[in-house]
């Protein structure tokens, strides 16, 4: 019998925030993420231009003071489009992660708690979903039920379900044999209560980390679908479709492809850094020596 060193999490260290800000990944990642989120929120109230009004005469302008990122093929301000596009990307990714967590986590916890046949069936179901290349299936779903943000969300969300189910199950399985669970059982608590009171709080860190990863993947997936014309539909701008539209005009206006691409890269980078930082902070086993 030995003591597993991984169990000594100190989630509520008084210096959590202080440690957090000294973690480079976390600090940069959360700054970028907050910035993008702020930009998306701001776009509800204000954008430099109204992008529903087309001034085709101004099309394909380069960078200027009036249009810092230039204008697109219909004369719309790219900066404004990117701001509103952030809203779309974030919304799609958040709801898709929400679907994945909302369905996957209870499933995973249930499988871990019940074991046996329930567990086996759920894991086989996971295998089944994983056997379908996610993007292909998302394309199928959106192509069959019609393109649009809602179908994109559902398509991405469905493939988040087994991911979270797997993470929740693995996490729950590692918590179940711990002695405090035995203690709770000795205190007469049932599997449901134990899952809610003891399992969930202890896998929340794992889920949070996975959440940021899926969030980033969701943004990439949404961009891919929009690029193929299966994501949010005009007039709602989306980064992926902006890239598609830019592609044909790259020899005349390369900046069209530059900024939406950068927006995707920066957002995904920010989220990944945030996820890495969170993992470093929440999982002391992987914490770097510094």
């Amino acid at each position, binding site marked *: 019998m030995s003591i597993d060193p991984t169990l000594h999490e100190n989630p509520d260290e008084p210096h959590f925030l202080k440690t957090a800000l000294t973690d480079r990944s976390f600090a940069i990642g959360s700054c970028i993420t907050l910035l993008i989120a702020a930009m998306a929120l701001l776009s509800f109230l204000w954008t430099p231009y109204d992008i529903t009004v087309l001034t085709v005469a101004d099309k394909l302008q380069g960078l200027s003071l009036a249009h810092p990122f230039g204008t697109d093929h219909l004369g719309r301000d790219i900066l404004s489009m990117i701001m509103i596009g952030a809203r779309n990307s974030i919304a799609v990714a958040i709801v898709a992660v929400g679907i994945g967590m909302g369905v996957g986590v209870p499933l995973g916890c249930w499988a871990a708690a019940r074991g046996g046949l329930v567990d086996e069936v759920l894991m086989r179901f996971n295998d089944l979903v994983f*056997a379908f290349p996610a993007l292909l299936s998302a394309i*199928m779903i959106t192509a069959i039920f019609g393109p649009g943000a809602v179908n994109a969300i559902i398509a991405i969300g469905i493939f988040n379900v087994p991911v979270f189910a797997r993470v929740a199950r693995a996490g729950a399985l590692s918590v179940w044999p711990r002695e405090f669970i035995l203690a709770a059982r000795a205190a007469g608590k049932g599997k449901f209560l134990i899952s809610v009171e003891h399992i969930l709080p202890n896998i929340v860190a794992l889920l949070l980390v996975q959440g940021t990863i899926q969030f980033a993947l969701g943004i990439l997936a949404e961009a891919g679908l929009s*690029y193929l014309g299966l994501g949010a539909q005009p007039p709602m701008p989306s980064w992926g479709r902006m*890239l598609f539209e830019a592609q044909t005009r790259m*020899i005349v206006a390369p900046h069209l492809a530059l900024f939406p691409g950068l927006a995707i*890269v920066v957002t995904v980078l920010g989220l990944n850094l945030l996820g890495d930082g969170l993992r470093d902070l929440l999982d002391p086993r992987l914490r770097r020596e510094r």
Partner: protein
Amino acid sequence: MTAYLAKRLLIGLATLVVASMVVFAVLEVVPGDPALIMLGMNAEPEALATLREQMGLNQPLLMRYLDWASGMIVGDFGRSYTYSSPVIELIGERAAVSLPLALLSLVLSTVIALPVGIFAASRRGRPADTISMGVAQVGVAIPNFWFALLLIYLFAVWLRLVPAGGFPGWNAGLWPGVKALILPAIALALPQAAILARVTRSAMLEVLGEDYIRTARAKGMPRRVVLWHHALRNALIPVLTILGLQFAFLLAGTIIIENVFYLPGLGRLVFQAITQRDLIVVEGVVMLLVASVVLVNILVDIGYAIVDPRLRTRQ
């Protein structure tokens, strides 16, 4: 070992059967009349009815499923509605592009990622680690189609070193064929390589923290030997897992990349077939892709057994 593999195989087969039902069920709810699509915009009703009859679209659903599923077992995937040729032929032609593409990018990403990941792990915390992982971090964030665009404009349009897209066919010779696949393979591989490098690094770091690494060093083994002989093989287990997942991802990634480079591969075939409602082709290709993912998973499981004696010799 045999029991282990037999179980994996059985699960794989069951997955395929259930998948075929799902695919058929989902695709049968699709709106769209294949006969109308074949004949085009100004087709006349009688012509349509004739064609529907010829294509067997009037049979009950279950019969059509059984026909289709039993056909697939003997390699008959049906006949494309839009191209009036057997689906298996289409798949064969297209796989000759997609498979080399996927393999090329898999090899490319592995060849880049493993050394980088191992190198970074061995230089943990030093500038080489920070820089290579910083690059990998950015690489993970780059959408592959955007990367593809940048590549096209740099190497094909600006420098004219490689074709911008299209595929001359293997008849045109090996080199022109490979040349046409270079850019798409790089575009597919690099983001994957970034992920793989990160996974390799963290797997190596995890292994390097294990007790048996200390045992090996206490034996007098220098770091280099410990890294390659003791750590790497253990670190391969998570790396294999990711490689398996990446294969599925690469297959799907080909859909976008083949569209960017207008390569006549499976990805474009299925994308076009979806938009043209050529369901029989979609069904065939999706089943093929699912089967290859299942196959790769089994290969990964075999890989585990090769790497990890605990699976091989379990009593």
